[in-house]
């Protein structure tokens, strides 16, 4: 049963995330991460007034060197069902960071993470990363590919401090940390 389920899972994940756009081979860990990040926009609410209107674009920024930046850019044309348009910005340094809604912090920025998060402060930016201790270190959603499955760890306090509301549906799939501070 299990191989069957796994097979289904993978196939489904592929098709769901890639919408049949990337060919027949198995999606890589990066591809899956990119698809997940693109989905976050639908499960997070930003404070009122963040977007001018419903057609205002949502900006996803990628800080540091990571394959995900390019993958995101490649996936944007294939997005369906997103009301808002999405744009992806890749920056090397924190200073170059524009106004964005979702910030993927690459593992290359591991040592500068505390500084980055401190710089962001209370800005309503959903921080996503895949490095260890990301969520416990103050990041909001940490992605981890484990056991052939994408796992999420959410630091609810960080999100709440940034005035972001993460959908309970997403939380249902995630492991929650930082709750004890409430």
């Amino acid at each position, binding site marked *: 049963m299990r191989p069957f*389920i796994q097979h*289904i*899972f993978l*196939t*489904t*994940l592929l*098709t*769901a*995330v890639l919408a*049949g756009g990337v060919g027949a081979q198995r999606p890589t860990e990066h591809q899956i991460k990119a698809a*997940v990040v693109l*989905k976050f926009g*639908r*499960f997070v609410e930003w404070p009122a007034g963040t977007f001018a209107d419903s057609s205002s674009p949502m900006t996803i920024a990628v800080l540091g060197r990571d394959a995900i930046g390019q993958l995101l850019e490649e996936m944007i044309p294939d997005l369906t*069902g997103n*009301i808002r348009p999405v744009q992806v910005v890749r920056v090397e340094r924190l200073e170059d960071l524009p106004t964005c809604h979702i910030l993927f912090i690459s593992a290359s920025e591991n040592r500068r993470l505390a500084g980055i998060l401190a710089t962001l402060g209370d800005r309503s930016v959903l921080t996503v990363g895949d490095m260890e201790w990301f969520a416990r270190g103050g990041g909001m959603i940490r992605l981890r590919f484990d056991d052939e*499955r*994408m796992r999420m760890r959410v630091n609810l306090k960080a999100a709440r401090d940034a005035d972001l509301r993460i*959908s309970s*549906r*997403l939380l*249902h*799939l995630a492991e929650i940390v930082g709750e004890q501070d409430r």
Partner: protein
Amino acid sequence: MRNLSIRWKLVLIIGLVSNVTVLLACATLVVFDWNASRDAMVERMTTLAGVVGNNSVASLEFGDARTAREILAELETEPNIKTAAIYGADRRVLAFYQQGGGQLAPTSPEPEGYRFEEEFLIVFRPVIYREKQVGTIHLSSDLRELDERLGRYVAVVGAVVVGASVVSLLLAILLQGVISRPITRLADVAQAVSRHQNYALRAEPHGQDELGKMIAGFNDMLEQIQSRDSELQGTRDQLQQRAEQLQQELSERLRAEEARENAERELEAQRTLSLRADRLRSLGEMAAGIAHELNQPLMGVRGLAEHMLIAMEREWTMDEEHIRDRLERIVEQSDRMVHIIDHVRRFAGEAGRSDVAPIQVDGIVESAVSLLGAQFKAHGLDLAIESAGNLPPVLANAFSLEEVVINLLSNSRDAVESRSAADGRQGRVVVRTSSPDSTQVCIEVEDNGSGIPESIIAKVFDPFFTTKDPDKGTGLGLAISRTIVEESDGQLILESTPDQGTRATVVLPIAEIVRV
């Protein structure tokens, strides 16, 4: 069914009606409830599919098949759900669920909706998240719940029907009396009335409903019959009484009739005797008259014969003429005697016979007067005949009529005799014959005798009534005379003034009139 007692009919009808009603009501409820529970089941399954879909949104979006399976695994609390599946937006299966073996979920989703298929309710419901269909939920439930519910319902309905029929039958048996009892009683009374012909019976009154009215009407009818009966009985009694009365009256009348006949017979016998006596008396009287009548010519004959004998002794010469005269006178006197004797013989022989013939009353009167004339003369009484002359004949028996005239003359003679004995007045009797009109002839015998006192004039025609001495009169003279006159359709009228005289009138119809 037709002969079933009305109470059982009522019980049956009530039982049938209530059972059918309960059955219909229950059947309606069962059908309604089955539909409602089907609808409810569809509703519930659809809702459940929605809940599962909502819970699966993130799993679908993030392709988290494990979580999707976990969500479906929670359906274990719903034992009816046999298969379930979550399909992604790409129509592929994200998660499967199966319980209790049997068939698997379809491998691809269907449009939104539900259907009952064989033993299952199959539901498909899309999962919409933020205006986008992110997948489809499939649920399939067996209908055991519905079936069980239906079974329970049918059992309850059966129990209700049985209970209701038992209760309704009991109630019907208890309550049918309200209607059937008065009817049964009425029927019993009607039967008793007709069997015993007893119209004094009454049905028990019963309120003001239709039955009550019927019973009151029945009682009224009985009352009318009863009163009519007693009327009839009364009339019958009266008739019976009347019949008995009539019977009694009839026998009384018969007895009276018999007595009367006996009396009449006796009277007849007496009368015959009396008639004979009267006849004898008349004969006696006539004999006296006859003797008297005969005496005169006899004395004449004797005188003439003696005279001739004396002349012969003395040798008187008598011329032939003289002798012839004497002999002629003797013959004349002898003829007279023969005539008298002949008359007496005829009277004796024919009186009482009822042959009638047209006769002249004058002849009768002269005959009677000639019979009694000598008597009157001997007693120094005047007797005269005054005839109108040329009278028409009357139809009568000559001797009976002569007897009447003799009777009347005798009465008058006695009356004038007693009168002249009292005051010395010359007694006078006139016999007058006349015809006052063209239909009648009258014979009047008028005297100036003592008359008849008013107190007895009504009785003088009664048989055996007489004022004379027993050896002189029988009291039958006038009675017989009247009978004789009336036999000839005539009348005998008596007019009298005391101390002045009496007039007896015999009125007879003339013969021609009688014949016509």
